[in-house]
């Protein structure tokens, strides 16, 4: 279980998160949505311990602020929004940076399998720096996957925190990445993702969280969050949400966006 309560983050004197609560269960994908500047990434960075916050975050009932870096690394992996690499490492070397001594199994096999999972089998020997932006993002996902290769550990579920995991990917790879997140959850792990794309969030998320101006304005199932009223309020424009009939995945389509 991932539990965050009363998360507040201030940059200087300006508070950007005003007391956010969040609960996510293992076996689920949680999508955090909201307009630019609503505090999505800041919330994720509080959950991963990358920003100073007040309130508490526990993963599997353990307070993250009391865990050492290596203990946290055994519990969760983090995919940043943008990752730069400063030396000409190969793709395989980058993936294996996520594999510390604590990961059970043959590291070379896990790295190769993680690369295969993101559709980059055979890319191990390539120079990371000359890959396209989308390929680099998938290599980073493979690194994250490798770090939490076994979704369930002795200390409970492992977690993936993804910051806009599909931002520079084409349509097919967006679906692949969301499928990977979903599979990870279905194998017993937990996923929390900051998402820009509402449709993908509704398709693949078990739960959605809509932030606006540093507060949660709606949380729950995609059907509960994806309403005309909530989205219009959050994004400051008129939004109409249509359910797609006959789709089991509760696929809801916002469209007919007009200025208010």
């Amino acid at each position, binding site marked *: 279980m991932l539990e965050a309560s009363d998360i507040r983050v201030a940059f200087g004197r300006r508070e950007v998160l005003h007391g956010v609560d969040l609960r996510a269960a293992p076996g689920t994908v949680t999508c955090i949505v909201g307009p630019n500047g609503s505090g999505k990434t800041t919330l994720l960075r509080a959950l991963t311990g990358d920003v100073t916050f007040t309130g508490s975050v526990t993963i599997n009932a353990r307070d993250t602020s009391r865990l050492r870096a290596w203990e946290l690394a055994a519990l969760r992996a983090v995919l940043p929004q943008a990752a730069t690499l400063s030396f000409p490492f190969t793709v395989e070397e980058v993936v294996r*940076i996520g594999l510390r001594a604590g990961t059970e199994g043959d590291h070379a096999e896990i790295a190769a399998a993680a690369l295969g999972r993101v559709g980059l089998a055979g890319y191990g020997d390539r120079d990371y720096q000359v890959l396209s932006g989308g390929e680099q993002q998938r290599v980073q996902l493979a690194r994250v996957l490798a770090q939490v290769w076994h979704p369930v550990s002795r200390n409970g579920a492992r977690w993936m925190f993804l910051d806009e995991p599909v931002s520079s990917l084409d349509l097919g790879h967006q679906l692949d990445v969301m499928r990977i997140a979903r599979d990870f959850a279905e194998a017993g792990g937990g996923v929390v993702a900051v998402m820009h794309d509402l449709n993908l969030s509704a398709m693949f998320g078990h739960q959605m969280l809509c932030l606006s101006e540093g507060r949660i304005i709606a949380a729950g199932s995609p059907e509960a969050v994806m309403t005309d009223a909530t989205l219009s309020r959050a994004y400051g424009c008129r939004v109409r949400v249509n359910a797609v009939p006959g789709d089991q995945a509760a696929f809801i389509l916002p469209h007919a966006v007009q200025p208010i």
Partner: protein
Amino acid sequence: MVAVTSYTAPGLRGTGRLARARRLHVAFALVLVAVSLVSLGTGATGLSLGTILHALTGAEALGEVDRVVLFDIRLPRLLTGAAVGAALASSGAVLQGLFRNPLADPGIIGVSSGAGLGAITVIVLGGSVAFVPSGAYAVPVAAFLGAWAVTFGLYCISTRGGRTSVATMLLAGIAVAALSGALAGVFIYMADDQQLRDLTFWNLGSLAGSSWTKLAASGPPILLAIVMACTLGPALNALALGEATAAHVGFEVERVKSLAILSVALGTGAAVAVSGGIGFIGIVVPHLLRLATGPDHRALLFNSALCGAVLLIVADTLARIVAAPAELPIGILTAIFGAPVFLWILLRRRGLEGI
């Protein structure tokens, strides 16, 4: 998802590169022994390989002159050169990993200047001004403090929110070097003739003043610096993806940074204290090694130390030969060969991403 598929790994260059880089440890160690023997035999008094081996193993007693030449002049000089080369090269590799940039070098970003200022302060003022100590051990300690202050200060200035600005780092380095130079100028102005002569040669970089006493003062911190550097390999690899990611995969980033800065300050400080301004070893050696065997710090750091030792011994031997019977300050040689390599790295990178 849970089960690892029966995927047979193809010829994984990443893994292969590390294995090859580790085999280089042995190769460099052998080369180090070879150039050491050549260096011991080279100079005004020629010593044959057999004589050196017999003398070193204690199998044969040398004549008085040969004994002094070998044991009191060349051996301490050889060991000092090896230590200095190893310290400068591994410090360079650590700095580059820490700043996430292949252009970081103790000489270029002002760490050596800081160490130099510390050393000059003690050389000129030592013993004559209250609270400034003197003696063989005071110089390396002062140089270490200068190097530490500069490295730490530069890192604080050029890193904001986990991102290191290379432009800021290089420019701040220039400012620090200028300030250190100006302060050093004040002390040089105050120095007497003998001190001036010492300082000039010291500035150019030379191993001519090597002695067992100086080696005893500088050797242990250099050894400690190299051992510390070599433990940082996995952490510096992760740091290549940024501080946040390094923390996410399980490294205590603040501790790693402190260790890296301490290692650089110890190594550079002690090296500068004993040999003066020998430049470019720290940038050339790691860069060439990265081209040859990849950037994996787990092998790069130790290879840098070994290769740096080899390079400096070769440079010192050449410095003794080219203008014989006089000898060239070794810093001139390393700059003549190193500066063009630095420019070459700059030009290659310009094509990639600017600086």
